[in-house]
């Protein structure tokens, strides 16, 4: 992706009719506003001819936002709303006229069509809510379908943490691409009415805004005034909206709904309203209504209406669902399942008006993260990650060359380099190509020769035979950088490297930098350290209940990862508290043929599983949660990440755990103290168990996890590591980076 040296340009298409007030239309408004406030030039394409400007006017008034009406500009073929294919064709045309840096699209049909466009792929920011919300119901075809969308997306915007977990847990391509894009509530405008004191002298005002549909219980809501009257309560139900659903199988439902809206005493139907007017009405209510059919309880979407009411300080009558509990707390007093609950809530606030006042303040605070200010911050952060700024030296070099710096990457395995590669590719001053070696030692020499002829800088990821080849073929003045991990130090080919041709040898830890110097005799001033990266934003997710009692291990094969020591720690802990458990995210030894063929590995596995069955302190307390890219979602259940290996070059797992809000616990493998703070390193399993139990039982787990999180943010966050990689393209790093410890904060 070539980033801009000008304001970022976005194309937005929500595949929604902006004449109708509903959640999707409001989403388009919010997206445009957040982009606009983050300094992006936005063009938003309309789906349907304009019938009312109440939603479009506010969009048009936003800075740097242009509304494109294809029905008046002659771009649309007719006057009917755009089909998905027509919309994609128009998006391609608009992009051709003025290239966009990002294209925000919403809705499965439209996103599917956009993902199939070779012009748009890679720049799509996709937002999907209309996918199967059950992992069990998702079949292979659907997984492939959404997988293709994930592949075409730069980012997949997920409305809730729950939806993100579902997508990442079922679509492997989505891991690392899913970011949270919560519904956004605009700040209430000035002049909203204050809340009238609750009293028997006036009717209670219940307010509903949105669509009218059976699962939204809107018809049942119209019965509330009469039902409440039977209980001696005076209640008005104010309903805002003009979208009455046609119900397949019940063609008369919409007629009944309309009649109830128009003719029910105590029901005041306000029809459709501009958003701000609707919010003004909502602000005058005593309760917001978001009481829905129980079939909606498993929805992975969060109602924008709930957020709007709460932001106005209006308590909401709503179903108790996991998502609402996360938002408002388990002890929120106004969860309802039926009319009786609603009556009880009404009676309770009339009897105790202070309860209303307390809850009003609580709900308002609870939805602060859903405000436009927070959304704009999230958007800025996302834009910064997508379009990073190059360091000054790199920009100067590119200016001197009169073109972007040409960077070639040669490797057989880029799994540890992909995010760095993504970052470098996104820099406007870098042009990046890859020489993908088939295996560690086999490649197409003509491709490699072309890269030598083309590149200004060559990076060898892994110090394998690729380094040997490039060290012998680089041109004079061409910069050669190698990143060495761990296994290469034991390989024989390093002696064949022409080290004079290598400008920088990058190790991931000071310990391995020291070992490299010791074993190879390479010039120490060229050996530097850039740590592995942790995408801290991806891992920052709320922990699940009970996480402090869950130990986690990521990768337990081969046996030198020492899962047996992890189990020993668990056993020691469970002798004190049976709530401790161990979750393992890993393939098992028999899943790797090259491991399983080794007798010593089989013996170790036999011993391990024998203990898991026979030792009653650990039997049933260890779960093997499989292997996959959804580590960030998995870490939500984990409070401690163990690193018990015999040796490691870096071991990213504790760092990822720290980013997730877990506490790391390491045994002293060689070099651990050059990467991690010694406070996380324990002499042996017993001391590790002591420290874990002391932390949990004293109630210090959360605070300790916070310290760990601060450290990882200071030590090896993705943006900082990527920044260093941008620098090393044009300047030598100091050999001092290879001394001391990487732990900061």
């Amino acid at each position, binding site marked *: 992706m070539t980033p801009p040296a000008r304001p970022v340009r976005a194309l937005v298409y929500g595949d929604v009719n902006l004449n109708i007030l509903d959640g999707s239309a409001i989403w388009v408004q919010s997206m445009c506003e957040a982009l606009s406030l983050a300094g992006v030039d936005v063009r938003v394409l309309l789906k349907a001819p304009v019938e009312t400007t109440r939603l479009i006017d506010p969009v048009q008034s936003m800075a740097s936002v242009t509304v494109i009406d294809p029905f008046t500009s002659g771009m649309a073929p007719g006057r009917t709303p755009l089909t998905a294919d027509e919309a994609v064709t128009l998006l391609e045309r608009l992009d051709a006229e003025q290239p966009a840096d990002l294209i925000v699209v919403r809705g499965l049909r439209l996103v599917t069509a956009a993902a199939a466009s070779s012009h748009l792929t890679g720049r799509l920011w996709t937002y999907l809510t209309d996918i199967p919300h059950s*992992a069990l119901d998702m079949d292979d075809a659907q997984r492939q379908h959404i997988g293709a969308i994930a592949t075409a997306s730069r980012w997949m915007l997920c409305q809730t943490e729950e939806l993100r*977990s579902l997508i990442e*847990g*079922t679509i492997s391509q989505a891991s690392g691409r899913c970011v949270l894009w919560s519904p956004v509530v605009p700040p209430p405008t000035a002049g909203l009415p204050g809340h009238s004191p609750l009293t028997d002298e006036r009717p209670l005002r219940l307010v509903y805004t949105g669509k009218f549909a059976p699962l939204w219980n809107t018809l049942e809501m119209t019965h509330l005034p009469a039902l409440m009257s039977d209980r001696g309560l005076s209640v008005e139900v104010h309903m805002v909206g003009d979208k009455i659903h046609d119900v397949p199988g019940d063609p008369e439902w919409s007629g009944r709904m309309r009649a109830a809206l128009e003719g029910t005493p105590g029901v005041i139907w306000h029809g459709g309203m501009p958003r701000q007017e609707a919010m003004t009405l909502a602000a005058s209510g005593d309760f917001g209504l978001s009481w829905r059919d129980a079939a909606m309880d498993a929805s992975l979407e969060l109602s924008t209406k709930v957020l709007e009411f709460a932001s106005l300080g209006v308590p909401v009558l709503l179903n108790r669902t996991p998502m609402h509990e996360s938002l408002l707390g388990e002890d929120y007093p106004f969860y309802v399942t039926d009319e009786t609950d609603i009556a009880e809530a009404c009676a309770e606030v009339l009897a105790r008006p202070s309860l209303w006042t307390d809850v009003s303040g609580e709900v308002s605070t609870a939805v602060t993260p859903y405000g436009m200010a927070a959304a704009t911050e999230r958007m800025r952060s996302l834009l910064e990650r997508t379009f990073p700024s190059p360091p000054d030296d790199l920009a100067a070099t590119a200016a001197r060359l009169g073109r972007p710096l040409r960077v070639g990457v040669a490797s057989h395995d880029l799994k540890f380099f992909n995010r760095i590669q993504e970052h470098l590719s996104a820099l406007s001053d870098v042009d990046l190509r890859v020489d993908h070696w088939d295996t560690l030692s086999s490649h197409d020499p003509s491709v490699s020769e072309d890269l030598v002829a083309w590149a200004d800088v060559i990076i060898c990821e892994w110090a394998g035979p690729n380094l040997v080849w490039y060290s012998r073929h680089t041109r004079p003045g061409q910069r050669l950088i190698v990143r060495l991990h761990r296994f290469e130090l034991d390989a024989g080919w390093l002696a064949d490297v022409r080290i004079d041709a290598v400008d920088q040898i990058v190790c991931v830890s000071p310990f391995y930098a020291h070992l490299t110097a010791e074993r190879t005799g390479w010039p120490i001033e060229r050996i530097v350290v850039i740590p592995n990266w942790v995408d801290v934003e991806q891992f920052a997710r709320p922990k699940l209940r009970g996480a402090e009692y869950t130990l986690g291990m990521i990768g337990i094969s081969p046996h030198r990862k020492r899962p047996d020591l992890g189990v020993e720690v668990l056993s020691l802990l469970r002798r004190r508290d*049976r709530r401790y458990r161990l979750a393992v995210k890993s393939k098992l030894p*028999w899943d790797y043929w090259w491991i*399983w063929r080794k007798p010593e590995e089989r013996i170790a596995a036999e011993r391990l599983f024998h203990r898991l069955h026979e030792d009653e302190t650990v039997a049933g307390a260890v779960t*093997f949660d499989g292997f996959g890219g959804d580590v960030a*979602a998995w870490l939500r259940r984990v409070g401690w990440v163990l690193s018990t290996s015999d040796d490691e070059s870096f071991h990213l797992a504790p760092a990822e755990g720290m980013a997730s809000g877990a506490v790391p616990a390491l045994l002293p493998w060689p070099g651990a103290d050059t990467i991690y703070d010694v406070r996380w390193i324990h002499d042996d399993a017993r001391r590790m168990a002591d420290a874990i139990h002391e932390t949990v039982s004293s109630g210090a787990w959360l605070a300790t996890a916070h310290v760990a999180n601060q450290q990882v943010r200071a030590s090896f966050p993705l943006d900082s590591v990527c920044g260093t990689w941008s620098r090393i393209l044009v300047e030598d790093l100091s050999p001092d980076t290879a001394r001391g410890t990487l732990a900061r904060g």
Partner: protein
Amino acid sequence: MTDQGIGETEGSPPELQGRSASGARLMAELRQANTRAERAERELQRTRQGASYVVGALLVQAAKDPRRLVLLPRDLWRVWRLRKARRTTGRSIAPGVQPREILDRDATRLLLPRLSAVPAGRRLTIAGALSAATAREWGPYAAVSMALPQDGTALIEAIDPDIVVIDSAAALPGETWSHLGNPAAIDRLLAAGAMVDAAHALGRPVVLLRMTPPSHTAFLADLAGRCDLVVDGPGSTRVSPWHPGIDPLAWAAMTPDANGLLVPPAGESRPAAHLSQLLFSASINPVTVDPAAPVDVAWARALAQTSAGVADPAIVSSRTLGAGRTSVGLLASGRRVLSGGDADLDTLLARRPDALTAALITSDPQALVEAARRGPPPLTATEHRAALAAVLLAASAPVQLTRLAERLGIAARPRSCWDVALVADADLDVDRILSQSWRPREVITDATITARAHQALDEAGIDVVERPPGRDVDPARLGLTSTYVAHQVDLHQPHDILDLLSGALLGQPAPAHPTDARMMRSR
């Protein structure tokens, strides 16, 4: 909850429950039949493809047709070649790679716990995602295997249980399937789904037991749709009530000998939390169950310090099923229960009016706190027996599992451990026998009974055992299957057999009784 089993109590119309139960049974039977048919078809196909069958068919053809006889050597040679090719042609695999089946065998062998044989007499095998509490209460009455997410499918395939159960309480933090149903644990949901598929492939029914609030089980809706039966236990809503039962004997063994009050952790509702706070702030020597200790040890320790307990949760809302395990277990153990409201507990105790005083159920928090402060005494022997009788009817594991098996059309009867043989009078009164709340399994009579009476008993599943007139009852000689024999029962009292059984299980001496009734073990 009433003694008809929660499936037949208030909350859902009986005819609907009947349809649901028979539907589940029919589905299970149909699935079993289909599975058997599929197995038979596969077996037949394998047989037809086998060399023995092919050679046999060639020989028969040759015998029938001389032209085929001429070709027989060639045909046999072809069979030999094909068989040899089958044996030697393997899939192309990388050097050192083992075929998947061998790896799967390794994985299964290492992952699965050593399975114990099904104990004789239990006759019901249950496996699945089970909470520790459910497994503990059912353990004495069924062969229970707790699956883990990684071995669920292999376990089901290995033991082919009668019923696969997914217990929502197993998804609570600290349990084996913690976070099942939370979208953050899609892996657990997929593992549970695979377990359901494995059960169905074997023709076994799957039951989703909801023991937690709807907010906890909302995301299990799709899993529920794949299960053959969904039931709601204490803590869930009244959609399809069924109490999973407790092991009353284990609780009864923990008799009260101290005067503390067991207080549960504060519940999620404000009134329950408020009540818990009041109880803790009153000077009542509150005792809690240590969540850190192994469950059995924790309960034994806590109960050793108490003579009474507060129901858990302290207040049960009208939409939630009550009579939770703690409340029912306390009653079975002879401890008085204080509750801020639990209609199901009230209904359960109302089955035995003598037991109503075993619980103080009041909506007045102050009255409850006052009662707690006074130090409620343990149950009297009479109250204990009556309370246990009520528990036996509606909330005991063997009875409830038997009801579950009946709903699923499974011929297993854990309740048989408490079967009673009734020694009947000469003037055998069938109607009064059938109106007993705990019906006998066998009726021993030395009189000739009418065909109509015989038929009525037979239809009720009661065997008639004839003994020679004047002879003593010798269970072995009579070939009785029941564990207990009841003598001199006053059939005018509809709970007489139940009360005798309850007293026998508690080891209480027979109470004063107009007929000198007694309950003896048959072996």
